[in-house]
Structure formats: C-alpha cells, structure tokens
C-alpha cells in the first residue's frame, strides 16, 4: 500500500462500500482508534519499580494514539490546565511524571487495538509513515525555526484517520462481500482519512495546530490559522513517502512540489533534509519495533 495521495487519483471506489462508509461517518458510527501501539509496554514499564521517567516519556512519544490520548486527558477538565497542553513535554512539565504514567496506564487499560485482519503489514506501514513524518516535521521545523514540538505531533498524527478508514472499509466490504484491491483501499484512505482525522481531532480535542495539519496538510494554502504547520506536515508526509516507498517518485519529482518554495527551502536545504534519510529511517526502525 502506498501512502501518496497522487497515486490514488482516478481510482473508482465501489459505490456500495463508499455509500456505507459515508453513512457511518455521517451517523457517527465510526469507531475511533483507542490503540496505543506501545500500550502493553507502557503498562509493563509503569509497574516496573526500576523504570524511569525518560523511558516512559520515550515510549509515549512513539505512539500517536497514546500521545494524543494523553494530550486529550491532560487537557480535560479533570486536570483543568489554564491553557491547552500542546506537547508531551508540556504534559510532563505540567502534570509530572507520576501523573503522566497514571494517565498512560489508564488509557492503556481502556484502549483496544485497531486490528484489521489481513492488513497487518499495511497498518505497520502506516505506523512507519507516521513516525517518519513526525521525525521529518521536526527537522523541517528546526531548519525554519518553527516550533519543533508541535511540528512533531502534526507529522505524527496527520494521517491518524487512515487506520480507521482501513478498518471501516474492510469491515463494510466483508459485510457486503465486495473484494477490495490495494489501489481501491488506497483510494479510500486518501479520500477519507482527513475527514475521519478531523473527527478524531475534535473528539480528542487535539491542539488546533494538529487539527489544522490533519485537515489541510494537502491543501495547506487553505489553512486558516496554522499554515506553517500545515506546510511542514505536507512536506514531512512527502519526504516520509519518498524514503519509505522508494518507487513512489524520483528525486526530481519530489523537488517539483510547490511546498519547498512556499517554505522558502532552497535546493541545498532540500539536500540537507534528504541527507537525514538514514537518521529518520533508523528512528523509524527503532520506534516501530
């Protein structure tokens, strides 16, 4: 499965599946994700007296759903922050490590994994893409001196809707006995993940930067308030695809995208970002294990 929107254009999606999907979205019958990838490890770590906060923080950082859940909980009336908590670091600073562990364990206990039988590899690929996007978003933010923490979350969570769409359409297709080809699946993900992502962002009360990145990263010029975050996410998504799916497009196609000029990245800046490929891949390999 590819993760690049360009390649899913002009694919006909089965009408019945699409109709059923839209109906479920409209009627709020979409099951939103509650799977922290590292939930089990967080639980184990939280129960380990020798575990330290650094390991917990690092674990939480690896999981987009858990990270978002923690932000949601940290921003909930139960903790009554004066202003929205924007990042895990902020959450650690505001709540303290113990409380954060508590939240993480609570979420872990309540969560159930999104599992899509037959699509385990695709889910893993989406996860790797999210990690690579987060890592690249940080590097872009560093280069342009934008906020690094929110950039990471934007990159990590920008396609948070994709696993949900995948689960929904495969469930619907199974119910309707309609086979789905990989290209059709891809078309569904690309067409609907932002819409679902916006629902998740609203449900979880994600920071406005992240919500806008999810909604507008592929049409960043329309982002009403956080255009920089949307642009960085667009580029991070593109770079993640480039390094994870080598046959997606070549170097010159990659550089043609207007997001580079819109972020005022000169050719040598692009070279700098591309030179980070191994670093990002190592990070993805480490975190995705």
């Amino acid at each position, binding site marked *: 499965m590819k993760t690049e929107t360009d390649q899913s254009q002009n694919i006909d999606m089965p009408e019945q599946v699409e109709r059923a999907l839209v109906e479920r979205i409209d009627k709020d019958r979409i099951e939103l994700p509650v799977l922290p990838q590292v939930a089990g490890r967080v639980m184990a770590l939280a129960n380990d007296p020798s575990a330290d*906060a*650094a390991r917990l*923080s690092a674990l939480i950082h690896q999981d987009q759903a858990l990270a978002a859940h923690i932000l949601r909980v940290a921003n909930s009336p139960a903790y009554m922050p004066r202003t929205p908590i*924007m990042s895990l670091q902020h959450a*650690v*600073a505001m709540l303290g490590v113990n409380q954060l562990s508590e939240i993480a364990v609570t979420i872990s206990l309540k969560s159930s994994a999104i599992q899509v039988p037959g699509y385990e590899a695709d889910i893993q690929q989406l996860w790797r893409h999210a990690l690579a996007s987060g890592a690249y978003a940080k590097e872009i933010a560093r280069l342009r001196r934008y906020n*690094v923490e929110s950039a990471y979350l934007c990159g990590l969570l920008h396609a948070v809707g994709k696993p949900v769409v995948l689960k929904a359409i495969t469930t619907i297709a199974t119910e309707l006995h309609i086979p789905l080809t990989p290209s059709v699946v891809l078309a569904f993900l690309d067409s609907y993940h932002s819409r679902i992502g916006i629902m998740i962002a609203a449900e979880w009360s994600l920071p406005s930067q992240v919500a806008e990145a999810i909604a507008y990263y592929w049409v960043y010029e329309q982002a009403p308030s956080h255009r920089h975050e949307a642009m960085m996410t667009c580029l991070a998504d593109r770079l993640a695809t480039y390094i994870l799916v080598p046959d997606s497009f070549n170097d010159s196609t990659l550089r043609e995208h207007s997001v580079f*000029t819109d972020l*005022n990245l000169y050719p040598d800046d692009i070279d700098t970002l591309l030179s980070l490929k191994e670093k990002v891949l190592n990070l993805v390999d480490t975190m995705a294990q």
Partner: protein
Amino acid sequence: MSTVIHYDIVVIGSGPAGQKAAIQGAKAGKHVAVIEREPAVGGSCVYRGTIPSKTLRESALQLDRMKRSSTTLDMQVPPNLMVSTLMRRLDEVVKSHGDYMMNQLTRNGITLFHGRAKFLSDSLIEMLTVDGMKQTLTADTIVIATGSRPRAPIDIPIDHEHILDSDSILSMIYLPRSLTVLGGGIIASEYASIFAALGVQVTIIDRADRPLQFFDAELVRTFVQSFEQAGGRYCGGQAVRDVRWDGISQVMTTLQDGQVFASDKMLVALGRQANLEDLNLSATGLTVTEKGALAVNEHCQTAIPHIYGVGDLIGPPGLASAAMEQGRRAVCHALGLPEGHSSGIPIGVYTIPEMASIGIDEAAARTRYRGVIVGRARFNEIARGQISGIHNGLLKMVADPTGEYLLGVQIVGEGATELIHVGQMALQHAATIDSFVENIFNFPTLAESYRVAAFDIVGQRQKRLASNAA
C-alpha cells in the same frame, strides 16, 4: 534567466541596512536592485528580531501594568499564558511593517529579487532562486547587507526545541515555567527581562560580573535590581561546563564550579555571527576578520572600493538604527554625496525597564576629563514618574568639568529609548546645561528629568565654584 542584468547599485539583503542603502540610491536617481533570500523584505529585524521581541515585550509590559492595577481593579492575570496569545498582534505588526517596507521599495522603483546571492567576481553576482533558477547581475556599486544570525557555540547542543537561540525562542507555543539564559548582552538581557516580567523563572548565566558590560554600571545595577524584583536571577562570573537536555523535561546546565541549574528551556544568546558564508567572498578577493566580520572603513567601504558592507555583518554595535544609517552613508559615499554630520548613534536596549545612552557615559568621561560633573534625576522624584508608578528610573547627564557642556546622557526606566533623543539633539547642537534649566518642559512629563538633572549639575557647579573661590 540567462542574460546579465546591469544595475547602478545592487544591495544584497533587505534588512534595515540594505533597505536604507537601496532607498538612498534610488532617491539619488540610480537604478537599484535588492536581492533578498527570504520571500518577504525586512530581514531578521522584522521576522526574528526587533519587531517580534518588541511585540512580546509590549505584551509583557501591558500584563505588568495590569498586575500592578490588580489591587485596585481586582484583575487576575492567567499564570500560564500561551506565547501565541502574547504575540497575537505580531502577524499584524509584521505584515504592516513588511508592507510598508515593500511599498517603499516599490515606490522608489527598486527591483526586488527573491533569491540567494553569491559573487562570481568582484562585480558579477549570481542569484539562485528558491526553485533553483540562476540570474547573473552586475553593478557599479555593491552593498552587502546580509545581516547576522545567532552564534551557535559548538559545545552547546542547540536543538531549537529545548535549547533555543534568539531565532527560535519565539517559536515556543507556551511559556516555560523556567528559562536559563546564557549570555549577558543586549539580546540576552532583553529576553531575560521580558520573560521574567511574564512570570517565568529566569536565570541569566554569564562570565561577566554584570550584564551589558558596555553600559553605565549605575544604570545596569538599576536594571539588575528590577530584574531580580521580577523574580529573575543574575548569575555572573560563571563559566558553563556542560549543557544537556535530560530527555524528559529539563535542560541541565552545569557550571565550572559544579553548580547545576535545571530549567524547562534555555536561550543561548552568546553573540551573533555575520551571514557571509553563502556569498563566496573569495571570488572578490575579500576576506573576513578573525571575528568573522567584514572589514570596512569609516564609510563602510571594503578593501574593494565599489563593494560596501553595512549592518550586523561589519560587527558592533549591531543595532537596527545604526545599520540604517550605515546603509544610507555607504551609498552617499559611493555616489559622492555628502554623508552629513551626526552626534553619534543612540543606543537603545529594550530590557524591562528600558535603557538608553547617547554620547559618553560617566566612566568614559572620567577617563577623558578630570572632575566631570554628573547630574541625576530619579523618576520616583518626578511627578510623572509618581503618577505612572515608575519607581525604577534614573536619568544621568554627564557634563564637562566646568559643568557647562553636555557630554552624554544615560537613562534607565520606561520611556528611556524615547527620552534619549532630547539628549541626542542637545549634543548635536552643543546645547549648554543651563539651556535645560532655562527652557520650559511640559508638566508632568518624564522629560522633566532633564531639567532636574541639569539643576543637579548647576548646584554642583556652584558648590565647586564656591569651593574654588574659598
């Protein structure tokens, strides 16, 4: 974009220095082009420096006033404000300033190129656009005004996330609870006092025993007192052994004497570095100084007569006001126009409280003259200072040993950067100390401090005369 385009003047960089150079050239009827690497004009001053930091400062001052009013108005200031809330007006301010500067360039018929410039020879410049296209330009006069960027010491791991520099400090979304500031210069002192006023626990660490070494010591003491009253701490005479992010929530700073400071964030403000690397100066034969600056003479002219250097890249004072003047003067010199006379560059430091200086200060005057007379006016003894609740202001007038002529003025306190211009004009026109006594100032104003300080000098002068007569 293959043919070579010729201009009378090409200015590289559109910050305060470049902009004024270009406008001076255009006003003189010359065909001028500006090459700017960023999509908008204005340079770091507009987007990462002066304008954003002063916008944040203004919010901090407003909050401070609200806090001080809270006893009578029962107002509460949220303890954990987001930086974006404090910077809400920034986009508007930056856009207005950028639009104004763009209009000024356009109105004067100046061609603006968006790209990076590099020298192919001492008269050929290649411009690379952001999408990789190239254009070659030539010019009779070339003004380099590429500015500077924060210096990044190799032993401090600036990640722009936890350990920030002055370019990335304002990318913070929320106010940290604590901030360690490395450095004791203008940028360090300004940000330290702004964040302290916003309720952040700020610690300045520097090698020097006091910040702002180039400034009058008495004024700096007043500033440090105000900073410490706001909850800040100045840790002077200290060298940093190690800085690291602990991986969880704190930046750990270890000093040579073993003290360890932990803070949510760190600002590294240990000077600035000229933006010269991308210019390929070797193609011109020009070299940089040991400190990485471009060497120029008093007309901002480099060793190659038709190439000028202006602004931060030629070294101190690194002030936008000085940069503008350098830009104007450089082009005047290149075109053989009179550069005009100035009484010197006023220094304005936008700490809380503000500090400003013109002419020579007390220490410099004492090394040059015997028996200088210094007049002082404290803002808490001025009606306007009392009314406005400004208790930490001080204006110093430095007079020659006769007590008749003004040598310099230094001020600390709100309004200092505005008030200093009275002293500047007085110096420009060689005004006597008595002229401050004989002229009427609006009442109540802080400018009245000049009159009070002048009276102080007159009083000391009379005592000295009486003593000499006896």
